[in-house]
C-alpha cells in the first residue's frame, strides 16, 4: 500500500478513535445527569443534587477533552482527505455544517450555565440547562452519524459533470434509513458507556465504604440504564444494523462474520482465527444455521460468502474487521449478562451488599470503551475498500499534495499531544473521584 495512503488512514483513524472516547461518555452521562437532577427536583432530595453536581464536575473535564480532540476532526476532512472532501463536500458538508450551527451552539451556549451557573439560576432553569446540553450532544451525534451513514449508503445525490457528488434531496440525506439504525445503535452504545461508568464509580465507593448514600444512587441509576441500553444494543438496534449491512453491503457482512464460503444455513462463528490466504477459519466454534437465521429469519436462507465477490471488493483488513466485530458482540453479550444479573439483585434488595457483583461492576469500566471502539472499527473497516460506498475508493480520497512525511510529522504530534491530554484527563478525574460527591466543591474558573 502507498505509504501516504497508510499514513493518512492512520492519521484519521487514530485521532477519531481517541476523540470518540470522550463524546461517548458525554452523550452517555448527559441523560443520566438529567435523571439525577429530575429526581432531585421531584423528591427534594439534596443527595440527588449532590450526585448531579459530582457527575457535572466529571462531565466538565470530559467535555473539554471532547471539544479539544473534536476540532481536529472537522478540519481533517480537508487537510488529510481533500480529494474525498471535494467529491463529497456538497453533500456531507451539509450535515457537518448543521452539526456546528445547531448542535454545537446549543451545547456550548448552555454548558457554561450548567457547569457554573447553578447559583445564578432557579433550580428549574438549571435543570433546563442540563437538558439543553444533553439535547445538544445527542443532536451532534445525529449529524455525525448522518454524515457517516451517507458514506456507507449514499442517498439523495447526483453526480455532476466534474465528477463530484451534489445534493438533490436534503430530506433523503438527513433521513437516510441507514442513519436511523446507526444512530440508535451508536447512542445506545454511548448509553452503555455512561451507565457502566456511573455504576462502576458507585461500586467503587460501596466497596471502599465511602459515600454510601450517593453510591447507591449511582449504582441504581447505572444498572437500570445499563440494562436497558445493553439489551437495546443487541436487539433491536444491533440486529437492525446487521440486517441493513447484509442488505446493502453483503460483502461486508461476509467479511465481519468470517464467512468465506456462501451457503444456505450459514453457521455463526463465535470464535476462531481467520486465515485469509487459505480462505478459512482456524479452530472455529460455530452455531450451525445461526447466521442465516439472524440475517434473514430463516434457518436455511442463503448467505453470500466472500467467495461470491471479487477480492478487490473485499474489505482490505479482514482479520482486524473480523476481530473488531467479534470483540464488540462478545462484550455486548457480556454486558447484558452483567446488567441483567445486577438488576435482578437490585430488585431483590441484595445488590449493594453483593460484593462479588460490585467488583464486576467496578472492573467492567474500561470495557464499554473497548466495545464502542471495536464497533466503530467494524463500521469503518467494513466500509473498505470504499470511502464512499460504491462511489469512491479510500485509495482515491486522500490529500495527494500532502506527503507521507508531512502526515507522519503531524500524526506523531497528535500522538504525543493526546498522550499528555489523556494523562491529564485521568489525573483530573481521579481527583474528582477522590474528592467524592459530598464535597461542597464549587466549580469555577
Amino acid at each position: 500500500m502507498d505509504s501516504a495512503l497508510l499514513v493518512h488512514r492512520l492519521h484519521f483513524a487514530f485521532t477519531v478513535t481517541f476523540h470518540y472516547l470522550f463524546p461517548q461518555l458525554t452523550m452517555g452521562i448527559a441523560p443520566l445527569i438529567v435523571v439525577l437532577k429530575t429526581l432531585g427536583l421531584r423528591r427534594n432530595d439534596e443527595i440527588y443534587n449532590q450526585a448531579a453536581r459530582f457527575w457535572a464536575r466529571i462531565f466538565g473535564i470530559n467535555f473539554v477533552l471532547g471539544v479539544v480532540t473534536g476540532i481536529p476532526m472537522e478540519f481533517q476532512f480537508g487537510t488529510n482527505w481533500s480529494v474525498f472532501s471535494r467529491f463529497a463536500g456538497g453533500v456531507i458538508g451539509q450535515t457537518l455544517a448543521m452539526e456546528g450551527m445547531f448542535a454545537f451552539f446549543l451545547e456550548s451556549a448552555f454548558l457554561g450555565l450548567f457547569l457554573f451557573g447553578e447559583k445564578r439560576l432557579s433550580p428549574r432553569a438549571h435543570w433546563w440547562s442540563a437538558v439543553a446540553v444533553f439535547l445538544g450532544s445527542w443532536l451532534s451525534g445525529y449529524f455525525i452519524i448522518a454524515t457517516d451513514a451517507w458514506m456507507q449508503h449514499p442517498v439523495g445525490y447526483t453526480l455532476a459533470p466534474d465528477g463530484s457528488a451534489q445534493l438533490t434531496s436534503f430530506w433523503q440525506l438527513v433521513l437516510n434509513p441507514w442513519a436511523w439504525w446507526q444512530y440508535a445503535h451508536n447512542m445506545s452504545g454511548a448509553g452503555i458507556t455512561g451507565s457502566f461508568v456511573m455504576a462502576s464509580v458507585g461500586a467503587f465507593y460501596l466497596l471502599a465504604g465511602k459515600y454510601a448514600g450517593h453510591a447507591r444512587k449511582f449504582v441504581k441509576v447505572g444498572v437500570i440504564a445499563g440494562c436497558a441500553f445493553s439489551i437495546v444494543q443487541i436487539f433491536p438496534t444491533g440486529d437492525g444494523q446487521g440486517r441493513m449491512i447484509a442488505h446493502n453491503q453483503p460483502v461486508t457482512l461476509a467479511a465481519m462474520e468470517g464467512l468465506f464460503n456462501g451457503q444456505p444455513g450459514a453457521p455463526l462463528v463465535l470464535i476462531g482465527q481467520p486465515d485469509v490466504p487459505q480462505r478459512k477459519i482456524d479452530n472455529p466454534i460455530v452455531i450451525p444455521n445461526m447466521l442465516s437465521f439472524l440475517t434473514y429469519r430463516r434457518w436455511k436462507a442463503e448467505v453470500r460468502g466472500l467467495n461470491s465477490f471479487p477480492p478487490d471488493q473485499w474489505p482490505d483488513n479482514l482479520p482486524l474487521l473480523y476481530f473488531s466485530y467479534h470483540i464488540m458482540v462478545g462484550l455486548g453479550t457480556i454486558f447484558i449478562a452483567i446488567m441483567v444479573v445486577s438488576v435482578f439483585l437490585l430488585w431483590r434488595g441484595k445488590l449493594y451488599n453483593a460484593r462479588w457483583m460490585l467488583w464486576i461492576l467496578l472492573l467492567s469500566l474500561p470495557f464499554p470503551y473497548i466495545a464502542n471502539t471495536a464497533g466503530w472499527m467494524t463500521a469503518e473497516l467494513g466500509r473498505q475498500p470504499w470511502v464512499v460506498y460504491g462511489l469512491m475508493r479510500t485509495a482515491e480520497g486522500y490529500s495527494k499534495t500532502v506527503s507521507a512525511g508531512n502526515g507522519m510529522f503531524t500524526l506523531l504530534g497528535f500522538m504525543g499531544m493526546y498522550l499528555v491530554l489523556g494523562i491529564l484527563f485521568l489525573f483530573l478525574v481521579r481527583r474528582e473521584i477522590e474528592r467524592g460527591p459530598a464535597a461542597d466543591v464549587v466549580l469555577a474558573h
Partner: protein
Amino acid sequence: MPTLWFMIVAVMLAAYVVLDGFDLGAGIIYLFAARTSDERRTILRSIGPVWDGNEVWLLATGGTLYFAFPQLYASGFSGFYLPLMIVLWLLMLRAIGIEFRTHVDSPVWQSFFDVVFFASSALLAIFFGAALGNVIRGVPLAADGYFFEPLWTNFRVGAQNGILDWYTVMAGVVALVTLTIHGSLYVVTKTEGDIAQRARGIALGLGPVQLLLTLLSLVATYYIRPQVMDNYRNYPVGLLVPVLVLASLVLIFWWTRTNKEKLAFVASGVYITVMLVGAVFALYPLVLPASTDPSYSLTIYNSAAGHHGLVVGVTWWSLGAVIAVGYFVFLYRMFRGKVRLEGGGY
C-alpha cells in the same frame, strides 16, 4: 447563490474573529494585565462562560465553507496543511489553558497553564493573521486546483511562496495588535480596578501602533498584489471601507481615552469587521488567488457546490443562525456586568 454564500461565509468569519478575538486578546494581555492569581481568575471568569460558544463560530464557518465551497475547503485545508495543524494544536492548548487551570490549587500547576493560555492565544492571533495574508497574497495552485505550501521558503514573496514570508508575518503582527486591543477593551468592560487600568493602558499604548500597521499593511498589500484595488476602482461603494476603518481606529482611541470602553469595544469590532470585509471585497469573486497561473485561481464559481445544495442551505442556515444569535443574546445577558470573584460559580 455563490455570491450569497460568499457573503454568508464572510459574515460568519467576521463573527468568529470579533467574538473569539476578544478571548484571544484576553489571553494575550493575561500575564501583563493580571499579576496576582485572583486577578488572573478574574480575567478567566470574564471569558469563561462565553469562550467555547465563541469558538464554535470557527467550526460553523469551516463546516459552512465545506458544503458551500467544497473545492476551496479541500484545496485550502490540504494546501495549508502544516499551519492548520499548528492552529489545531494551539486551539487545544488554549482550551486546556483556560479550563484546567483552577482544577488544582498549586501555584506550579496554575502558572504552567497561565503560560499555556497566553502563548497559545498570542500564536493563534499571529497564525490567523498570516492565514489571511496567504489568501490575499495567493498560493501556488496547480491546474487541478490543489497546492501545498511549506511553512517557509525564503521569506520573500514571489515564485516559491511559503506560509510565512515578510508579508504574511506582517499580517500576523497586524492581527496580534488588533486582537490585543480588542481583548483589552473587553477586559476593561468586564473588570474594575487595577486590571481594568492596565488593560486600558495596553489598548491606549497600542493605538498608534495599530494605525501605523494598518497603513503599512494596506501599502504592502497593494505592492504585492496591485489587483486588490480593481474592485475598489470599479465599485465606488468600496470607499466606505477605508472611511470606516479610519473612523473606527480614531473612535477606538478616542472612546478609550474618554473612558467609554463599551463604545470603544464596539468600534474595535467594527474595525475588525470592516478590515475583513475590505479584504474579501478586494478578492471577490476570487476566493483563493493563484500565484502560478491566474486561470488556476479558485473563484466562487469554480469552487461552489451544486445549486440545489446551496438553495436548501439557505433555509436551514437561516434558522440555525437566528437560533444561535438567540442563545448568544441570552448568554451574554445572563453574565452581563463586571466579574465578581466572591461567591460561587460566577
